């Protein structure tokens, strides 16, 4: 039957219908946000790890990348060993340390910086924004972020002074170097406004006074293809007993452990949203069916089948859900941005990271789940409508 009297019934009480749609919209917005949160965390993190294509990280035993001050010794040897693996395309060493710098102009003051030692030929850490990259053996050049450039008061072409370990007894740095700013970069793992600088690995090791042991913080490894990642990880684990070898999947698992609270919160709140949707639609339809029992009994009397009655009630519920869901998606995307702004202000979180990631599969999942829930919520009232006894109902209506 195409007359859709069930859907048109929604126009009978426009205020009630509008309120129900609003309720479903808020519930489905919440569900969408929680689906985005749950799926977004891992997706955002995995994207971040793979942004330069390095699928494997080698770190000191028992640590995760840049999670502690621990370092790996004999970096050159390690890099050579790893490069010999047939599945490896490239290896990027990385030194991460605290260093200091002097402002270029103005009152002499020491600013605290975060130093990266990188190999410009193989690096998975930054993207050049302005100026030029470092040459592989450029021991006179430095790369800045916008934040470190502002902190040092320096621009491309300026000479900055970087200080190594500060000795409070001598009131002097253990080492000082004057370097020319070659370029400004975006450091991919930096938190917002982190003042980071980058030099070639040997120079940063000297500044950090770890050159004798040739220490690095992390080795980023790029496998020749995604299919070779797991075999390379297994081989490196067997060869490098003193190091921790993690593929992106492993790192995502560790990350999931750390973010377990948000994942569980997302699941709980998502479930609550579905429950609200079920209750709202179920209650609304039950009450409207009860109000229209006389009408429904008449329809049954004149020959409308139970199946038609059930279908119309379900369609009524589904129509409410469709409209509510459409509004909910729009609302959910807006609230997700607001919630993301809150959560991405976590200290120490990479600025490029996002908690709420609106990926198409997530949005489609949220929509389908809401629609299915809304449709199922109409089952009980539809059953009520179909089972209404005709004669007693008509008798009751007549009194």
């Amino acid at each position, binding site marked *: 039957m195409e007359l859709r009297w069930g859907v048109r019934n929604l126009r009978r009480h426009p205020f009630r219908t509008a309120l129900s749609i609003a309720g479903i919209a808020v519930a489905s917005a919440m569900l969408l946000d929680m689906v985005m949160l749950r799926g977004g965390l891992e997706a955002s993190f995995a994207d971040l790890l793979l942004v330069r294509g390095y699928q494997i990280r080698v770190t000191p035993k028992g640590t995760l990348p840049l999670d502690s001050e621990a370092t790996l010794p004999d970096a050159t040897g390690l890099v050579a060993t790893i490069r010999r693996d047939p599945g490896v395309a490239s290896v990027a060493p990385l030194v991460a340390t605290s260093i200091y710098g002097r402002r270029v102009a103005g009152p002499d003051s020491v600013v605290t910086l975060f130093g990266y030692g990188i190999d410009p030929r193989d690096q998975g850490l930054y993207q050049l924004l302005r100026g030029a990259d470092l040459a592989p053996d450029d021991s006179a050049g430095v790369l800045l972020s916008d934040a470190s450039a502002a902190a040092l008061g320096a621009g491309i072409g300026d000479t900055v002074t970087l200080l190594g370990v500060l000795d409070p007894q001598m009131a002097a740095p253990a080492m000082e170097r004057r370097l020319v700013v070659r370029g400004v970069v975006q450091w991919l793992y930096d938190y917002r406004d982190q003042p980071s600088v980058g030099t070639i690995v040997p120079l940063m090791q000297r500044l950090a006074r770890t050159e004798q042991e040739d220490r690095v913080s992390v080795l980023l490894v790029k496998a020749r293809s995604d299919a070779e990642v797991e075999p390379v990880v297994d081989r490196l684990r067997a060869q490098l007993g003193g190091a921790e070898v993690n593929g992106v999947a492993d790192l995502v698992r560790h990350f999931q452990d750390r973010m377990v609270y948000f994942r569980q919160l997302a699941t709980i709140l998502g479930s609550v949203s579905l429950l609200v949707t079920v209750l709202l639609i179920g209650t609304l339809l039950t009450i409207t069916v009860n109000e229209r029992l006389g009408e429904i009994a008449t329809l049954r009397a*004149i020959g409308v089948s139970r199946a038609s009655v059930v279908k119309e009630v379900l369609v009524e519920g589904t129509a409410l859900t469709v409209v509510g869901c459409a509004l909910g998606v729009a609302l959910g995307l807006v609230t997700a941005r607001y919630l993301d702004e809150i959560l991405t202000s976590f200290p120490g979180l990479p600025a490029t990271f996002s908690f709420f990631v609106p990926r198409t599969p997530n949005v489609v999942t949220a929509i389908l789940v809401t629609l299915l829930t809304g449709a199922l919520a109409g089952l009980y009232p539809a059953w009520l409508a179909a089972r209404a006894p005709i004669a007693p109902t008509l008798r009751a209506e007549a009194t």
Partner: protein
Amino acid sequence: MTVLTGRGLTKTYQLEEQTVHALRGVDVDVAPGDYVAIVGPSGCGKSTLLQLLGGIDTPSAGSVELLDTRLDTLDDRALTRLRLTKLGFVFQRFHLLPVLSAAENVELPMAEAGVVPAERRRRAQELLEYVGLGARSRHRATQLSGGEMQRVAIARALANKPAVILADEPTGELDAATGREILNLFRRLNGEGTTLVVVTHDDRLAAEAGRVIRMLDGRIEG
């Protein structure tokens, strides 16, 4: 030859602690083209009898046969289908769907019967013109007067060309003048061969009938 037969129809139901004997072994025969009026005081079982004859209630005892088919042999789906295609109902309170227009209310049984949209729209318009509401076909039920709504209900009852029209107090909610319109319509329908069974308090309607069945306390008098 009969089109609708009831034999030994009994209906008993429980109202809290009280047992109500609505019908006590009633026999009814309706032939094609009959205009039967069922009259009696309130609570005599007239509406119950009509509901049993129409298959919208089941008797505690006895049987109903419509066009040689015993209703008690049919499951709900088949019984519903029979009501859709062979019977037409008119109720005291019209029971039109307020969200549909007059034409759509008339189309409703045809849509359920699977008639194609173009054909059912044409027939709905034809029926509305027959009952004098051709110009009001697009109006929603809530925009019609009581008499107009009842005429739409009659048009709806005729939609699938039923063998019998069953009407329960069709003028019960109408004033005298409007009731006369319905009276005239029923007369015209019966004159054209439509079989009518009407439950009524309205003496004028009863006077129009070819046969009057008087009921009292669940039994037919005389």
